[in-house]
């Protein structure tokens, strides 16, 4: 029942009771209610003619950055005695200073401006129309209006820097870079020997080997370093990323993706990104800062989800050139080993960066003996999983997210290159 209807019903009741009993004092009891009703009518809100303008200090921000929002509401109509101006904030944005809602008196043809500061989590946040609710002072009559104004704020993922990701793809592109190309030529790392050819630098002559041969001079050959095609696959399956208590390891996967993509693009490689989550999103391969920007924008929008078509991880091979490097960023589940082994068998060089879900979940579960036991069992299962992967020739970085990402990558991938060559030769001979 509306407030006016309730008041009217009570006034009728009092008046009828007073007349029925011929009691003037009883009729007089209706006076406060009647005057209250009249006060509502007096200077009630007129038709609203408002316009709104919203200015956002930045279109893009990092998580935790302060963004200033400036609002100006102009009244083109009559005076509004009490109007609530509410700027509905997108989810995951919070006001840290100022107010997103104002309850003000707006005189005729006047305008009001104010600012507030907000911070947000990763994602693309769309601002909606500003809501205006005008009422009389006693709240009996109300009028609503949506003031059309739009805005968008893209909160990009946090950036973690990694200097170098030592990858070993079987095939590289023609442009020079920093990835060993398994071909002799100019470079830094010793690759082999060949007979001296005219034009070779005297510095490259291997005098020790040449001295053992008659009339033949040998030159050192160095391994060419080139750029490569790298496909980053981000696993956004809900079942492997989300845990009890609304805790998710997905943000750490995003952080790793940003770090890996930034590092590889900075070294001149051609990088593509495939996000397998709520929506499968493919960022076609590209070079340089422009590609980094595209990847950052897609990562800003990445969300976990369950694909209705596939329950297990899918890596579409057509998206990645044969023999290229694939970097999978996933907490992994037991059923993923066979898929990764298949990819490996088809010639892809695989690096799995796996944020450790066991340590992550254990930290949120307390320290009871049952938790310790469960953690131990889960850790053993994960060790078996990672060992199976390593046996198929997949490089694995098991990242405890409590440690800095760069530290985890450096300690896991800084093995002697000879060891990696040996793995490659072993796989190649199969």
């Amino acid at each position: 029942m509306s407030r006016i209807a309730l008041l009217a019903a009570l006034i009728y009741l009092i008046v009828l009771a007073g007349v029925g009993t011929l009691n003037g004092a009883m009729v007089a009891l209706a006076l406060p209610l009647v005057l209250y009703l009249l006060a509502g009518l007096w200077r009630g809100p007129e038709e609203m003619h408002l316009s709104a303008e919203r200015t956002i200090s930045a279109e893009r921000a990092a998580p935790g950055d302060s963004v200033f929002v400036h609002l100006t509401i102009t009244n083109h109509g009559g005076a509004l005695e009490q109007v609530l101006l509410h700027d509905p904030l997108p989810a995951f944005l919070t006001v840290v200073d100022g107010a997103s809602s104002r309850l003000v008196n707006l005189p005729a043809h006047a305008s009001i401006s104010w600012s507030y500061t907000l911070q947000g989590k990763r994602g693309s946040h769309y601002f909606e129309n500003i809501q205006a609710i005008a009422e009389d002072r006693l709240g009996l009559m109300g009028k609503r209006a949506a003031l059309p104004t739009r805005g968008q704020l893209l909160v990009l993922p946090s950036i973690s820097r990694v200097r170098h990701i030592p990858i070993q793809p079987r095939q590289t592109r023609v442009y020079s870079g920093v990835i060993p190309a398994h071909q002799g030529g100019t470079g830094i790392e010793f690759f082999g020997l060949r007979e001296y050819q005219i034009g070779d630098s005297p510095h490259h002559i291997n005098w020790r080997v040449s001295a053992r041969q008659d009339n033949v001079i040998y030159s050192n050959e160095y391994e060419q370093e080139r750029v490569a095609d790298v496909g980053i696959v981000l696993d956004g399956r809900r079942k492997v990323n989300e845990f009890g208590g609304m805790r998710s390891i997905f943000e750490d996967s995003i952080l790793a993706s940003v770090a890996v993509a930034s590092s590889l693009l900075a070294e001149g490689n051609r990088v593509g990104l495939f996000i397998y989550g709520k929506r499968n999103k493919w960022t076609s391969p590209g070079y340089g800062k422009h590609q980094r920007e595209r990847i950052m924008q897609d990562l800003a929008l990445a969300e976990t989800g369950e694909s209705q078509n596939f329950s297990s991880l899918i890596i579409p091979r057509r998206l990645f050139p044969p023999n290229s490097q694939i970097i999978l960023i996933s907490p992994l589940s037991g059923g993923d080993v066979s898929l990764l082994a298949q990819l490996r068998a088809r010639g892809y060089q695989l690096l799995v960066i796996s944020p450790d879900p066991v340590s992550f979940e254990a930290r949120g579960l307390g320290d009871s003996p049952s938790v310790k036991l469960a953690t131990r069992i889960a850790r053993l299962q994960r060790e078996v999983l990672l060992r199976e992967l390593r046996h198929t020739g997949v490089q694995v970085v098991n990242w405890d997210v409590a440690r800095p990402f760069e530290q985890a990558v450096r300690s896991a991938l800084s093995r002697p290159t000879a060891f990696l060559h040996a793995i490659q030769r072993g796989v190649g001979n199969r």
Partner: protein
Amino acid sequence: MTRNFVYASIIASTAILTYGLAVNDFVPVSVTVALLGIAWIVLFVRGLTRFSGLAFAIFIIISLASLWADVFPVFALAGVIFALLAWDLTRFFQRLQMTNSPQDARKTERAHFMRLALVIGLSLAGYIAATRIHVTLTFGAAALLALLGIWGISALVYRLRSHE
């Protein structure tokens, strides 16, 4: 501040009606009124503000009934005024919750209390005038006036609702 005024209004309305009924030997009814007042406060504390309309209607009916019970008319009027205040301020408190600007809240509170003070002042003045002026009417004339009043209120309500 508004929250405290809501408590004060409920307590005042309950206390006045309870006292008025108790001194006229309607002790069980006065205890019921006291319990209803406590229930209204509990509902407000728990944020169940949608029941404030019901509580307001009950307290108006109790005020009306207290006149039959020969309670001093000023007590009944005070019961109505404080119940009206509690009901109004509950709604106003909800509205204040919608803004996160304390400065606006203070300004709006001041303007709202001024408007309420005006309504209550006029009500008291009108009531005093009504009790001083004695006009003897036949039942027909009273019924006609009542019908006129009801028509006036209906027209007013119709106008208010058509503006919404």
